């Protein structure tokens, strides 16, 4: 909880600093815009990459995002956070680029039912899976797994779990309802977990397998008894 509050305070300080810089740019200080670019360059690149799915388009969309933000900064009134306003421009720039290339990425794809994302791999992972392979190898594995997510899920995942935007900020940036953001995030997390599992799973020992089978049987029995008790109560 304390960590969450720290993050929130840091986030608020960041938003205040952004607003002060925006006001300087609006007053004619163009150097302040460079500071804004430095502060948001990484987030905007990740956003345009999440939308377009490739580095070349992401780069162009990022450049156009900052150019457009500079041209329209006079219209920024602080109703939303600067970072949300900028992220929204980045998403539109990314989408426009895919439309121009007729690749037509849509962020409005129909929801996958939860059944489609149900976990299939359920073996335990090592307690410190990061130590199983080199940092570079993990990074490549994670980036490939995120790239492989369908665009509507990839964008939500990157904004929420990579950029650590709140559910509300993600909802405002994409123009998607809060339940929609939550539902896509759950599916994206499950899909990513499934993609990483083959690398980090550990074959269970016979003792572990037997213990787990025993626990599963006990759990199912308990669920069955609960069900019977609920039906009896209803009668």
């Amino acid at each position, binding site marked *: 909880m304390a960590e969450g509050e720290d993050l929130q305070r840091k986030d608020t300080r960041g938003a205040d600093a952004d607003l002060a810089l925006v006001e300087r740019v609006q007053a004619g200080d163009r150097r302040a815009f460079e500071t804004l670019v430095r502060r948001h360059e990484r987030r905007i*690149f990740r956003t345009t990459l999440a939308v377009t799915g490739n*580095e070349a388009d992401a*780069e162009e969309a990022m450049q156009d995002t900052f150019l457009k933000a500079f041209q329209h900064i006079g219209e920024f009134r602080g109703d939303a956070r600067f970072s949300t306003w900028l992220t929204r421009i980045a998403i539109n720039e990314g989408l426009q680029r895919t439309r121009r290339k007729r690749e037509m990425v849509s962020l409005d794809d129909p929801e996958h039912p939860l059944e489609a994302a149900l976990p299939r791999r359920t073996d335990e992972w090592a307690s410190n899976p*990061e130590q199983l392979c080199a940092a570079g190898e993990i990074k490549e594995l994670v980036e490939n797994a995120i790239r492989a997510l369908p665009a509507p899920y990839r964008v939500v995942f990157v904004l929420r779990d990579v950029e650590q935007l709140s559910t509300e900020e993600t909802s405002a940036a994409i123009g998607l309802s809060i339940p929609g953001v939550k539902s896509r995030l*759950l599916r994206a997390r499950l899909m990513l977990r499934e993609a990483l599992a083959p690398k980090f799973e550990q074959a269970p020992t016979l003792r572990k397998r037997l213990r787990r089978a025993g626990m599963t049987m006990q759990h199912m029995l308990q669920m069955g008894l609960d069900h019977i008790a609920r039906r009896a109560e209803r009668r």
Partner: protein
Amino acid sequence: MLSCKEVLANMSCYIDGDGSAELRSQLEKHVARCPRCWVVFDTTNKTLRIVTDCQPFEVPLEVSARLYTRLQGLLVGS
């Protein structure tokens, strides 16, 4: 007790620290007894930790350099 499907549907909520105390307690009870859901919770948490630690998709240096070159005219034109 919640079913495995209900537990899964509320997993993100739990990970993000949302949900009522009642719901959180029900999820914890289920996960403590159900090995399958325990693995899904544990490995999803590990997935998120791995993603946070590895900081994916840094801006390549040359991409960053080209951005500042393109913005240069606009910045020094003041």
